[in-house]
């Protein structure tokens, strides 16, 4: 009985360690740091300058900077996590992973663990830029609430990324899906403008994505809201994250079955 618990945990841990080692095997630490420090800077800068130029009364610099600072987690939690299966396929190791008796859930969630740490660091740096480069006033911010929002958003978005990653098992590449969902959040999640700007028939899509709740909660935290004040938003976000992980697991098994039966597992181009 103990093995039923210990084995998945062991697989989970070794998968997490392996993912970190694999990342630094092809990416030098210097380049990783450069990516960490510049990725969010320029995406925030782009929208802040657009907001300054447009001078839309609903969209202040703080609105855009805080939204994009939190959205920067998508670069790792959506893009990197979504590409997990695609990268295995690209490297020719997907079949080796899938013929092992190891628990699939442990393998793929383990692979995503380092990206959660990476995501937290990315968002931390992005909020630093928001405060010190783009002049967002954090004097009345509730930092504990903000930390809780960042943690929950990173978890939920990683779950969302894992769900998308399952598609990479069947499709030729996960890169296309990863790119679409990396940027689509900028349009649907209230990062750069209020969701009410979207046509009514598109708004349900916004509320099916965890980042929507995260951005609203982050702005409330910067205005001084307590954890209790944003508990509803955090609960919704957590729920979507958990559903995404569970749904992702079911999709992973379904697509694995489909890829096996159709012989598309090795298909790349």
């Amino acid at each position, binding site marked *: 009985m103990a093995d039923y618990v210990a084995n998945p945990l062991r697989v989970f841990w070794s998968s997490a360690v392996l993912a970190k080692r694999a990342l630094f095997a092809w990416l030098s630490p210097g380049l990783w740091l450069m990516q960490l420090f510049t990725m969010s800077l*320029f995406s925030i800068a782009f929208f802040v300058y657009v907001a300054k130029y447009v001078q839309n009364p609903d969209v202040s610099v703080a609105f855009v900077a805080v939204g994009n600072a939190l959205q920067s987690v998508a670069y790792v939690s959506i893009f990197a996590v979504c590409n997990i299966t695609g990268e295995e396929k690209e490297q020719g190791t997907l079949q080796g992973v899938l013929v092992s008796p190891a628990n699939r859930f442990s393998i793929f969630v383990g692979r995503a663990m380092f990206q959660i740490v990476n995501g937290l660091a990315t968002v931390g740096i992005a909020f630093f830029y928001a405060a010190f480069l783009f002049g967002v006033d954090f004097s009345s911010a509730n930092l504990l609430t903000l930390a809780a929002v960042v943690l929950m958003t990173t978890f939920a978005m990683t779950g969302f990324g894992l769900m998308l990653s399952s598609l990479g098992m069947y499709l030729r590449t996960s890169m296309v899906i*990863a790119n679409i969902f990396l940027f689509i959040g900028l349009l649907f999640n209230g990062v750069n403008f209020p969701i009410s700007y979207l046509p009514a028939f598109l708004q349900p899509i916004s509320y099916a994505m965890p980042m929507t709740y995260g951005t609203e909660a982050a702005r409330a935290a910067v205005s001084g809201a307590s954890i209790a004040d944003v508990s509803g938003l955090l609960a919704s976000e957590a729920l979507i994250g958990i559903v995404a992980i569970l749904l992702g697991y079911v999709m992973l098994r379904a697509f694995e079955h489909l890829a096996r039966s159709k012989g598309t597992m090795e298909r790349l181009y």
Partner: protein
Amino acid sequence: MARLRAVWTAFRHQALHFFADPQWLIPNIIAPFILTLVALMLFRSASGNVVLYAILGGGMMGMWGNTLYASGFSIQSERWWGTLESVLAVPTSMIWIIAGRAIWNSMVGILNGFFILVIAVTVFQTPLNLNDVPLFILAFVLTLISLACLGLVFSSAFVLTRSAGVLTNGLEFPIYVGTGTMFPIALLPFWTQPLAFSLGPTWGIDAIRYAALSDYSSGLTPGYWGDLAIMAVLSVCYLVIAVWLFKQVDHRARRDANLGRY
């Protein structure tokens, strides 16, 4: 003549690759496409010319995004496939092969501009009244060529690194910010402006806006023809740098024998 034939063959080869797997267009242009839609949402209360300003910027981002991604990944893909050494070893210099690809990639970027145009007209109902169509087309074509030249510089640099993909991702937003695709570069801190002025697309988009917008008041001082002249000089500089870089890359790749390493 042999070089032109190599350019044409590489152009055709890249086109065939594209048609064999057109889904790769999505990663190349999705960012500029979405960024333009976001900007259009923000500009929604603005008048016609301001919206056209954003649409032109979006088209520019699309061409630039495609040039950058295709430059980066055409090298990286060769490396993955194990064909990079063979391409470098053929008697034709690699720069002509990459040039053919870069021209195709810049052309495909036009597609993004077209998609944005369709969305702008159908969804945002923006009137598309170009002020001077012949000057607009001239600026557009020259900007396309300038982008292809810049793509050559990036391609040569990417041959040397196994992190071309990371660099490609990392360069996208800095260029969108630095070239003022969606806002006047006067808004940027002063110290960043020399970098902005060293990029052909900065002058290209300005010339395009001079030709397209009747009341374009926030343009750069040289004006339409000045923009084109500066862009032409910069494009020649890019070509010289690219030729020099490719020679260095060729030498270094043969000396270090690590071209295929990733």
